[in-house]
Each structure stands twice: as C-alpha cells, then as structure tokens.
C-alpha cells in the first residue's frame, strides 16, 4: 500500500492550487458579480469547449467515481446501466436543449421555471417546477458529499478507528464544500471543472492500466471466483430494471437545474449541439470506473484494505482503495484529489443552480422589487444553507448504496419532463393539467419509493431500492410515476380544451410552435 504522508502532501498541495483557481475564476473574464446571471450563468459566454467541460462536469461526479463502481462491486452488472444511460442521454439533450437555448436567448430566461411561467402563463406551475428542481438536487449533492468523504476516509484510514475517521472526513468534506461555493460562483466552478477533468482523465487511464497490469488482464478479472454470473451479464429478472434505469436516467439528466444552467451558458445553439454530440465519449471513463468494481476483487491488497470497513460503507471505497493499491504514492495523491474535486465541483454547480431557482422563481414572485445585489446576496446565502439540508440526506442511505440518492432525486426531477421539455414543442398542454400531472407524478413516486424499501416494516434500512414490482417485472419507479404524470396531463388537457370559456379566451393555440 501507499505511504500515507506522501499521498496526503501531494493531495494538499494540489488542493491549494485548485482552491486558488476557483478563487481566481471569480475574477476571470470579469462581469459584474452582483448580477445573478453573472454569478450563475457566467454571462452566457461559454464556447463549445467550455460548455463541453461544464456539462461534462455535471456528468463526471461522485456518481461516476464512487456510486456506480460501488453498486457494481456490491450488486453486479445491474449498475452498469449508467453506460447505456450516457449513450442515450445526449440524444434527449439534442432534441430539447438547443430549442430551450434559443427560446431563452430570445426571451431572456435564465432558468427552466422562467420558460414554464412564460409559456403556460402559470405562477403556480412555475413555482412548483422550481421547488421540484431544488428538492431533487438535495440527494444529488448528498451523493457528492459521500464521495468526498470516501476519499478523505481512505487517506486518513491509518490515523484512528474507522468510525471516527469516517465522521471527521464527513465534517471536513462538508466545510470545504460550503466555503468553495460561497467564494467562487459559476465562473470559478467552470475554470476548476477544466482542471478537474484533466486530472480525472489522467487518473482513469493510469489507474485502469496499472490495475489491469497488476491482475493480468480482464480474463483473470472474470475468472475470479467472486465474480458470479450476475456480475457478467444482467440476470433476466433484472433486465426490465436495467433498461428502465438507463432510459429514465437519460431523460432526467438534462432536467436538473444545474444541467439547464449548463445549456444556457453556451454561446450559441450550434456550439451547444457540437459539444453535446461528443459528450458520450466522456462516458468511456465512467464505463472504465464501473469496471473497477469488478477488478478490485482480483487485487488482494485492495480487498484487505476494504475488509477494515463494514459492508454497508465498503463499496464507496472501491476506487480509492484500488488507487492506493496500484499506483505510486505521489500519483495516488493526484488521483485521490481528482476524485475529491470530482465531487466538490459538481456539488458547487448544483448548489448555485438551486439558489438561482430560489431567488428568481420563488422569492421574486413574492418580492418583485428585490434589487439585483440583494438577489445575489440571498442566492449566495441560500446555497450555503441548502448544503445543510443536503447533508441530512447523507444519513438516509448506507453509503455502499449511495447511487440510490441520485436515483431518488431522479424520480422527482423526471416529473418535469412534460412541462419543461415536451412543453417546448407541445403548447396544447394546459397549465392546470401540467400542474396536476406533476403533483400526481411526485406523490406516486414517493409512495412507490416507500413501498419498495419496506418503509414501516422491520426490513426498512434506508434507501436501498428504486425498483418497483409490476406485472412487467421490477421497473425503475421513475418511469412509472412519469407514466402516471403524462396520463393525467394528457387527459386533463383534453378535457379542459373542451371547456367553452377557454376556447373563447385563447383563440387557436396551435400545437407545436
């Protein structure tokens, strides 16, 4: 194993450089940081390359580094669904994101809620969309905190008993996140995203090469007795779950407020399309990291490191353990920093997006005369406070199953699909119908999550599953609740359309645009 003094020294020095970049970033191409669109959209001036990195940063998060490998390690190939998800999600993005970008440019929207409010002329719907966005991001930020904690835990493992080390790691991770978001804003986060992605690519390539060299190739990985059949292909009972997890995740990614921020900060619709077309290649790193969850079984020193931790938190340490076991100490410091900022940067970007929604689409609805500078001040403070709520979500899940945090947020965010994305093309939807559909989607989703995890029964241990048994097999709850949502939206839109009063007030709102 690595020499921990070297690992920690390299980590700390690189982190100092990183923190400087984040701070310098807030002064880079400086706009007036007292304006919210400057703090939060980087002034809508990001070219194809930077927009690529910003959206890529949303993709390469602790989800990729920690949650997916952990799921694969603990449960097998089911959690490789993240790879087809990435392959599909950019098709969804190409269909909707450029359209949203154009409308936003034309009408000055800076959030998804802005669009919904204007297109469907509904304050209630717009506030609900904003609230859903804010709440759905909490578990996703929590996942980033789990990832940062995992890195610190693996570095500090020799310095005390595991429980204390994990608690201390959580506190440090949280404090760094809060301080970082408060000082940098989107410009800082984007600049650090480039730094982070360079480190990440180096790390992924070097560690997979070193690990495969150590174990002697994939044929040894797959002949290890611990690699059961459900680690090689998806068992037939889980195929419906696999397909729906991938498909729904693909729909969800671009509905998140931070992803919409990423879309809107592009410089043109064409540049946005180009960067989106290439983003699936980013997923190759995700796929390799997912394989770490299998490779680790063939690296005895990594396995003995993991055995110091209980099964409930072992999974998240797979990637750090493999790093420490296979590369020289100084490089382990570099790699662990990459994983650490891989959680930190996205968490900051997400918190900024949340704060944006709160001030612009909720507070301003009630206090329309808010000045630009107090708007930005509220946004910054809100993003700090929100992190405590995110922290609360950390405790709802055993960290090995941290991916459930993202899947839970996904069930909520998916419910925005009819109003935010379909609404770009189908103005035939009625605001009351969209509102009712959204509420039905969220309530049914929550209900199914509680049932699937056996809430109220002795077998309830937190969020462990996002699959719900149906006659078609166990499906990701997101597609079921989105189905109900769409059903309500379409039926009510059809019914309301027939009301004579509506027809008289709105002459021929043609479908499409």
């Amino acid at each position, binding site marked *: 194993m690595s020499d921990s003094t070297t690992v920690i020294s390299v980590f700390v020095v690189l982190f100092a450089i990183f923190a400087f970049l984040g701070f310098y970033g807030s002064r880079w191409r400086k706009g007036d940081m007292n304006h919210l669109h400057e703090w939060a959209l980087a002034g809508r001036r990001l070219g194809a390359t930077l927009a690529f990195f910003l959206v890529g940063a949303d993709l390469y998060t602790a989800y990729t580094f920690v949650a997916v490998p952990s799921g694969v390690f603990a449960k097998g190939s089911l959690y490789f669904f993240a790879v087809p998800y990435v392959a599909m999600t950019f098709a969804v993005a190409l269909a909707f994101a450029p359209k949203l970008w154009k409308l936003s440019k034309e009408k000055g929207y800076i959030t998804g809620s802005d669009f919904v409010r204007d297109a469907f002329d509904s304050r209630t719907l717009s506030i609900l969309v904003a609230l859903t966005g804010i709440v759905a991001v909490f578990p996703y930020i929590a996942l980033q905190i789990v990832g940062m904690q995992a890195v610190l835990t693996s570095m500090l493992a020799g310095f005390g008993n595991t429980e204390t080390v994990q608690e201390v790691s959580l506190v440090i991770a949280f404090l760094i996140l809060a301080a970082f978001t408060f000082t940098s804003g989107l410009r800082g986060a984007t600049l650090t995203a480039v730094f982070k992605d360079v480190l990440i690519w180096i790390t992924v390539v070097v560690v997979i090469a070193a690990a495969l060299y150590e174990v002697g*190739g994939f044929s040894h990985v797959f002949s290890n007795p611990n690699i059961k059949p459900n680690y090689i292909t998806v068992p037939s009972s889980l195929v419906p779950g696999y397909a729906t997890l991938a498909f729904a995740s693909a729909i969800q990614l671009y509905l998140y407020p931070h992803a919409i921020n990423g879309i809107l900060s592009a410089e043109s619709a064409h540049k946005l*399309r180009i960067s989106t077309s290439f983003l699936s290649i980013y997923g190759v790193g995700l796929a390799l990291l997912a394989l770490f969850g299998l490779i680790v079984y063939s690296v005895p020193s990594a396995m003995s490191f993991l055995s110091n931790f209980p099964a409930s938190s072992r999974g998240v340490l797979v990637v750090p353990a493999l790093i420490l076991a296979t590369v020289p100490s100084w490089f382990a410091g570099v790699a662990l920093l990459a994983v650490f900022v891989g959680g930190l940067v996205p968490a900051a970007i997400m918190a900024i997006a949340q704060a944006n929604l709160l001030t612009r689409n909720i507070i301003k609805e009630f206090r329309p005369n808010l000045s630009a500078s107090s708007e930005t001040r509220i946004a910054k403070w809100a993003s700090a406070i929100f992190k405590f709520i995110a922290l609360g979500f950390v405790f709802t899940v055993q960290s090995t199953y941290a991916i459930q945090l993202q899947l839970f947020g996904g069930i909520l965010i998916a419910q925005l699909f009819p109003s935010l994305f379909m609404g770009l093309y189908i103005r035939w939807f009625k605001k009351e119908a969209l509102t009712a559909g959204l509420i039905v989607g969220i309530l049914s989703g929550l209900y199914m999550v509680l049932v699937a995890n056996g809430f109220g029964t002795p077998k309830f241990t937190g969020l462990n599953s996002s699959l719900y048994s149906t006659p078609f097999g166990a499906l990701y709850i997101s597609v079921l609740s989105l189905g109900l949502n769409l059903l309500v939206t379409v039926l009510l839109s059809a019914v309301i359309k027939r009301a004579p009063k509506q027809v008289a007030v709105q002459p021929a709102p043609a479908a499409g645009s």
Partner: protein
Amino acid sequence: MRAIHVVMALLLIVPILINFYTPLYNYVNPKFEGLPFFYWFQIMMLFIVVIPYLAFTYLAKRLDEEGGSS
C-alpha cells in the same frame, strides 16, 4: 413534416432504441481481450453514437441557416 425532420428524428431515436433494448447485448460471448460482450458492446456504443449525433447537428445547422423552420 419534411423528410429532413424524419431523418433527424431517426438519428436520435435509433441510438436510443439500441441502447434501451438490453436483450440485444446481454451476452457473455464473443469476448474481447477477456471482456464479456455485454461490457465491450456498451462501451463501443459510446463511440458509435457520436456519428448519428453529429449528423443530427449538421442537419440542424442547415435548417437553422434556411431560417425559421426549426
């Protein structure tokens, strides 16, 4: 609905269907360097989908330049 719209829709829908339909690639063999088909097929798709996505981007730009009809 012009032909170009249909082609553009297919350029997005076909990659989604291929990736969505898990039974298409849920096999152990043929292996590639010891990696089961299930894994390498899906990794390969990450590269392949760039082609239809870029084609979509190219057609969308042409539509934009024609003006208005997007």
